[in-house]
C-alpha cells in the first residue's frame, strides 16, 4: 500500500515538475542571455493555455496541432515583447529592467482580463480518459501524466540538440558567456536574443497547453504562481544553467507533491519559498552552478 502511494506521488511529482521545468527553462535562458528576470514569462504560459483553449474549442483542433500552433504563437509573442518592451531598456539599470518586466506582466494579465473576461474557462478534454496500472499494483498512471512527461522530455531533448548542435545554439551560448566578445566575432546579438525569447516562450506555451489539458481549467491569473515557482526552480538549479532549470523543476515538483501527500498542502507554497531562501543562502549559484569570484 505504502509503496503504491509512493509511486503515485512520484508520478504526480514528475508531472508537476515537468511543467515547472518547461517554464523554468525560459526563465533561465533569458536570464542567462540578458540578465533579466522576465516576470512576464509566467503570463506567456497563461497565454499559451488560452491559445490552446481557443484552438481546441473554436477550431476543434486535436492535441498535437494545438500544442504546436500554440508554441509558435507564443514564440512570436515572446519576440514581440522583447522587441517592443525589453530592447529599449537593455542598457538601463537592473531595477528599471525589472519594473519593465513587471509592467509587461501586468499588461498581459489585465489585458487578457479586459478583452477575454476574467472568468475561469473550461479547457476541453483532448486526451482519452485512460488509466494504466503500474506493475500490477493499485498505483495508476493517468494517460495525461504520460503525455505531459513524454512531451516535456522530447522538448528538452530537442532543446539540448538546438543548443549544442546548431549554429543558433552556439550563438546563444557565446552571447551568454560574453556579449561584447560574441559581437566582435560577428554574432548578431539582436537576432540571438530574439531567438532565445522565441525558444523560451515556445516552451512556456507548451507548458500552458499541457496544464490546460491536465487540469481542464484556465484563467488570466493562472500564470502568476507557477511563474514564481518556476523561477524558484530556476534558482534552485542555478539560474542561467539549462540542466539546472530541469533539475530544479523536477526537484520542486517532487518536493511539493511529497509535502502535500504528508498533509502539508496548505504550506506547500511556503516550503517552496523557504527552499529558495535556503538555497540562496547556502549555495547562491544553485545546485548545478559554479562559484564565481567577485572582482572589483
Amino acid at each position, binding site marked *: 500500500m505504502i509503496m503504491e502511494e509512493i509511486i503515485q506521488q512520484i508520478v504526480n511529482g514528475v508531472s508537476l515538475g515537468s511543467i515547472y521545468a518547461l517554464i523554468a527553462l525560459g526563465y533561465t535562458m533569458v536570464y542567462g542571455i540578458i540578465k533579466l528576470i522576465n516576470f512576464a514569462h509566467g503570463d506567456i504560459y497563461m497565454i499559451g493555455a488560452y491559445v490552446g483553449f481557443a484552438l481546441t474549442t473554436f477550431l476543434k483542433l486535436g492535441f498535437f496541432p494545438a500544442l504546436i500552433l500554440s508554441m509558435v504563437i507564443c514564440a512570436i509573442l515572446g519576440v514581440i515583447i522583447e522587441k517592443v518592451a525589453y530592447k529599449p531598456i537593455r542598457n538601463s539599470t537592473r531595477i*528599471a529592467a525589472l519594473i519593465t518586466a513587471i509592467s509587461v506582466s*501586468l499588461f498581459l494579465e489585465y489585458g487578457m482580463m479586459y478583452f477575454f473576461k476574467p472568468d475561469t474557462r473550461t479547457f476541453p478534454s483532448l486526451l482519452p480518459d485512460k488509466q494504466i496500472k503500474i506493475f500490477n499494483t493499485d498505483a495508476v498512471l493517468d494517460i495525461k501524466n504520460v503525455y505531459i512527461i513524454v512531451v516535456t522530455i522530447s522538448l528538452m531533448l530537442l532543446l539540448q540538440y538546438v543548443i549544442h548542435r546548431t549554429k543558433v545554439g552556439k550563438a546563444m551560448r557565446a552571447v551568454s558567456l560574453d556579449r561584447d566578445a560574441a559581437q566582435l566575432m560577428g554574432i548578431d546579438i539582436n537576432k540571438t536574443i530574439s531567438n532565445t525569447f522565441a525558444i523560451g516562450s515556445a516552451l512556456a506555451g507548451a507548458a500552458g497547453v499541457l496544464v490546460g489539458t491536465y487540469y481542464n481549467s484556465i484563467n488570466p491569473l493562472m500564470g502568476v504562481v507557477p511563474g514564481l515557482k518556476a523561477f524558484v526552480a530556476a534558482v534552485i538549479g542555478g539560474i542561467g544553467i539549462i540542466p539546472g532549470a530541469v533539475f530544479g523543476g523536477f526537484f520542486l515538483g517532487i518536493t511539493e507533491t511529497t509535502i502535500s501527500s504528508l498533509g502539508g498542502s496548505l504550506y506547500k507554497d511556503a516550503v517552496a519559498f523557504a527552499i529558495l531562501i535556503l538555497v540562496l543562502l547556502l549555495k547562491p549559484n544553485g545546485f548545478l552552478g559554479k562559484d564565481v569570484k567577485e572582482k572589483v
Partner: protein
Amino acid sequence: MKILNKKNILSILAILIVYAIVELLTHLGVIDSYIQLNLILIGINIILAVSLNLITGFTGQFSLGHAAFMSIGAYTSGIVTAKLGLPFIVGIIAAAVVASIAGIIIGIPTLRLRGDYLAIATLGFGEIVKIIAINNDYIGGAVGLNDIPQYTNWTWTYFLVVLTVFIIYNFIKSYHGRACIAIREDEIAAEAMGVNTTYYKILVFTIGAFFAGIAGALYANYFSFIKPDSFGFMKSVDILVIVVFGGLGSISGSIIGAIALSLISVFLQNIPELRMVIYAVILFLIMVYRPQGIMGNVELKLFNKKGGLNGYAGSK
C-alpha cells in the same frame, strides 16, 4: 547650528498650515469621507514609499517584500487593538517594533545576497509571511481579521507621515546616511573605507520595516478589516513602483509619486481591468523615457536653494 532657525520655523509653520487647512475643509464639509479616505491612503503610501526608498533608493538594497512588513504591522496592531483592546498608540508602537524585529530577523541572513538575488529572497519572504497568515486561525486565516476598531484619522495619518519623513530625511543627511549612500554607490569601496556595510544594511532594513509597520497599523485601524491577500507580491510591487516613479534616492520624489499614483488609481477606479492596463503602460513609458523617475535623486526645495529641512514641506 540653531534648531530654531528661520528655515525650520517656516517648515513647521507650513506643516501646521497644511494640517489646519485640511482640518478646516473637513469641518466645512468640503472634504467628504471619500476624499478623506483617499487622503489617508495617500498618507499610508507616503510612509511606505519613503521607508522603502531608504532601503532601495538610498542604500541600494533591492527589496520586493516591503508589503510583508506592512502586513506584520497591520496584524500586530489588529491583535493589540481588537483582541487585547488596548489603545491605538500601543498598537502603533507594537506594530512598528514587531515589524522591525522581523526586519532584523530577515535582514541578517538575506542581506548577504546582492541585487536580483536579494530581490528574490525578499519576495520569497513576503510570500512566506502571507502563507503563514493564511494558515493561522487566531488571526482569521484566509478570511481575514475583522472588527478592528477604527482609530486612524487624518490627524494620526498626517503627523505620522510628518514624523516618518522627518526621521528618514534627517537619517539620510547624517553621518549614517552618507554611509548608506556609499554602500549604494559601491559596496566594496565603502567597505574598504571602513564602513561597516552589514551593520548599515541591517540598520536600514530595520528602520524601513519599522515605518512599514506603522503604515500597516494605520491601514488596519482605518479599514477595520485586513486579509493576507492585501499584502501580497502585488502590494510590494505597488510600493516599489511609487518609489521608482518618484525617483530612487529622492524623498520628495516618493511623496510626489505616492500622491500621483494614488490619484491615477482614483481616476481609473471605475474601469478596474483597464485601470491595470493603463497603469502598466504608464509604468513602461516611465521606465523607457525617464528611468530615473520624476525627481531623479533631487530634492524639492521650498524656501531656499541651500538645502535644509523643508524638502518634505515643499511637496505638500
